[in-house]
């Protein structure tokens, strides 16, 4: 973009005198052109150039000079056109073989647009003249306020309003709302649950440890609790296969049920008071 902001020296060498640069009265009139295509047409007319065969390099330079002189070199629409012209200028400079197959004149698109715009200008001129003619005729000027009429009966009912509400809603881009909520992991609770499980059973699976419908918080809390218990040497984690469900096995006999452990059963059968 920066190369589009021209200093006068950059173009003065190649640019012949244009009416735009010469006439200061022109410079003041910013609204003289209704757009870059209008300015371009003006330049072509000034130079008496056939639209079908535009000398792109010359016109591009003149265009840049003109928008600079007119103070239009800040306007995005004019800058865009300037960019197009410069690209076109570069394309025209590319070497091409004589009679090359499939070569398309890069100016084609610009010519099409200019012709189309010129047509619109003609139409606009016709409309302008029609409006002028119509403005020569006055409608009745005075319109008395309606005498004590009740407010105009507007066609408005609830169904219509609700339909409109639905339409509005349908058009609203669904907002991407992320609710960020602090969710502390309940490791303590999970520890208590695991200890209770271990007290009841020698062995259980990961899925059983999680219980039904675990949330992500439950999963993380349970995992941390299991790791903590494994670290304390209270259980052993085993996984039969890669990515398989892992099995949690109790490592030490539960303190509250000594008679339940097989080792004790075998070793001390007789001392059992109840025996």
């Amino acid at each position, binding site marked *: 973009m920066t190369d589009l902001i021209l200093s006068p020296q950059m173009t003065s060498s190649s640019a012949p005198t244009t009416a735009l640069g010469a006439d200061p009265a022109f410079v003041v009139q910013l609204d003289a052109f209704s757009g870059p295509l209008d300015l371009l047409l003006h330049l072509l007319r000034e130079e008496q150039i056939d639209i079908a065969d535009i000398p792109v390099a010359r016109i591009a330079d003149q265009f840049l000079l003109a928008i600079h002189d007119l103070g239009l070199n800040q306007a995005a629409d004019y800058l865009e056109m300037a960019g197009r012209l410069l690209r076109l200028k570069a394309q025209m400079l590319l070497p091409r073989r004589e009679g090359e197959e499939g070569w398309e004149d890069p100016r084609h698109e610009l010519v099409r647009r200019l012709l189309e715009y010129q047509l619109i200008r003609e139409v606009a001129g016709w409309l302008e003249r029609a409006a002028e003619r119509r403005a020569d005729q*006055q*409608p*009745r*000027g*005075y*319109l*008395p306020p*309606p*005498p004590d*009429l009740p*407010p*105009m*009966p*507007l*066609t*408005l*009912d*609830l169904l*219509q*309003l*609700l*339909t*409109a*509400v*639905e*339409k*509005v*809603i349908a*058009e*609203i881009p669904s907002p991407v709302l992320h*609710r*960020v*909520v*602090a*969710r502390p992991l309940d490791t303590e609770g999970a520890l208590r649950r695991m200890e209770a499980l271990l007290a009841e059973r020698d062995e259980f699976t990961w899925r059983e440890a999680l219980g039904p419908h675990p*949330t992500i*918080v439950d999963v993380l809390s349970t995992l941390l609790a299991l790791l903590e218990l494994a670290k304390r040497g209270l259980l052993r984690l085993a996984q039969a296969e890669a990515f398989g469900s892992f099995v949690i096995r109790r490592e030490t006999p539960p303190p509250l049920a000594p008679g339940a452990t097989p080792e004790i059963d075998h070793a001390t059968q007789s001392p059992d008071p109840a025996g």
Partner: protein
Amino acid sequence: MPLNPLTQLVEAALFAANRPITVEELQSLEPEAALADIRTALDELREHYDFDGHAVEVVELAGGHQILSRRSFAEAIERAQIAVRTPRLTAAAMETLAVIAYRQPVGRAEIEEIRGVSAGGVLRSLQERGLIEVVGRSEGMGRPLLYGSTPLFLELLGLRDLAELPKTEEFTVALQPHRPETADSDEAAASVPAAS
């Protein structure tokens, strides 16, 4: 009995004017005419309208002259006006009204954001029709005007008050005012991610 040129000029001026026109103003139409000529022209026009039974007449009021339709046609004209205009709200007006009804007080910027189009013209026409009104100014930048619905709006919908506007789940989600999310109060709902 064709009208003479000065009478024509007077007729054109009275027709196009949006107010009663004085004899002096009429004189400025034709500097060479005397005030008496203007009065004669006014008389000729008046007589012509009367004689040919036109539906209009030259009336003297507020120190000037005006062409008005005759009283006997008032009823027909009234009827015609009603027949002529069935003021229906456009889709754009309806949608804007919907946003205002559910979100008031609401500023233009917010309406435009929701509807994705500029709302200036629509707001003005709704205001002119008395369906919405300015209810205050926002505290925000430039203190933009805030709009709300009017009693006429309720009247046309046959509602007693705004609370009678239907509330559906959908509407409340999309059109309720945004509330800043308060993180701590949501802890109870922490295990239910989607705030349904």
